[in-house]
């Protein structure tokens, strides 16, 4: 009797083992098939309509055009001593203009008088975001962490920034504002960001 009971137990145990093994194998196979189908589709790639293809080619050409403009900016900065960056008539009391300085970093120019302008680096000295091209209450404002800078001195007025925004050299000739090539070699890189107090 006792032996028989043991045997029965063993058979039940073995049967449930087989059921679990089947469930595991079936589940794993199902899962792998579903995923493999996606992965194969991914590897073989999309079948695009010609409209989609031409849309993409167009987009690519626009991008190349943009890149070309950027490269021309680079060239201009290597080969000239001053660059037109904005028109005085385009600026108003609060609205300035972001331009790219000789370090290829963003800078911003504002009006600070009837016919005089002031340019400062637009790289926020807090954590390197680009400041807004509009004055807020006559102050330069960085939206990332709400730092305010004085327009005339560049000194931080409120917010987390502690270092002044450096001034950038400009000249104005007949309504046109030119960025002037800084003296010394032009080296572009993070050490040129105004983090290090000038």
């Amino acid at each position: 009797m006792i032996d028989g009971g043991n045997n029965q137990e063993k058979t039940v145990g073995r049967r449930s083992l087989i059921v679990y093994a089947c469930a595991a194998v079936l589940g794993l196979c199902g899962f792998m098939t579903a995923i493999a189908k996606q992965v194969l589709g991914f590897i073989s790639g999309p079948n695009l309509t010609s409209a989609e293809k031409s849309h993409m080619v167009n987009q690519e050409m626009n991008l190349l055009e943009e890149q070309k403009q950027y490269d021309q900016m680079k060239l201009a900065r290597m080969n000239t001593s001053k660059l037109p960056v904005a028109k005085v008539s385009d600026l108003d009391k609060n609205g300035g203009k972001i331009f790219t300085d000789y370090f290829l970093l963003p800078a911003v120019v504002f009006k600070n008088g009837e016919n005089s302008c002031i340019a400062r680096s637009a790289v926020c000295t807090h954590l390197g975001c680009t400041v807004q091209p509009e004055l807020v209450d006559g102050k330069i404002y960085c939206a990332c962490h709400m730092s305010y800078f004085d327009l005339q001195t560049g000194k931080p007025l409120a917010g987390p920034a502690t270092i002044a925004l450096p001034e950038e050299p400009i000249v104005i000739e007949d309504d046109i504002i030119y960025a002037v090539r800084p003296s010394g070699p032009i080296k572009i890189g993070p050490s040129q960001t105004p983090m290090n107090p000038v």
Partner: protein
Amino acid sequence: MRHKSPHLYSPNRIRRVVGGETPPLQFVISRIIIMCAIVTAVLCATPAWCFPPYAKWISKQSKMQVDCSYCHMNSQGPTGSGVGQLGSLSEEQKTKLDTADSPILNSFGQSIIKRLGYQAVVDNVADPAKLADALKSSDLDGDGIADGVEMEHGTLANDPESAPWDLVWKVRLQRNIGFVLAILVSGLLAFVGLIGLSKKLR
């Protein structure tokens, strides 16, 4: 408006705020000033000609950041000489400015003009919710969320990769229900089988 910046970070103030005592008048005032500054910043950052009331309304509704490129080509609005701004247009493009193919608008902006007309945009400036309501019957990007609803949530109506997450997951679940069910059933089956095996094996 003047900021009382030196007080902004004074340790006393921080202790008071964190301690949860009644904030003194000075703190309330500085807080109001900062709020005003933020509002001014938002207003100033929104150039003319891109209907600031709409951008403002969308931002307020959704608490998401919104710029002119919600409807326009350029995120700085139509004034300027950049891509999709008035200064860069050819003579031929300028003739299309008032039509539904306007070169300064993105596909969502164009679809508004196409469906409701330019006048509806001007008329609803005071009550942007009405414009959103009128746009609730179409789904330009096919992400399953109506354009008007996307306006209320501050996500792009012409981009399927931008949609309010708390609504769009249901749509995506419905669209992929077969795959999700297959994964769920086979995953659970495999889990039950494996855990059962690990208990039964000696």
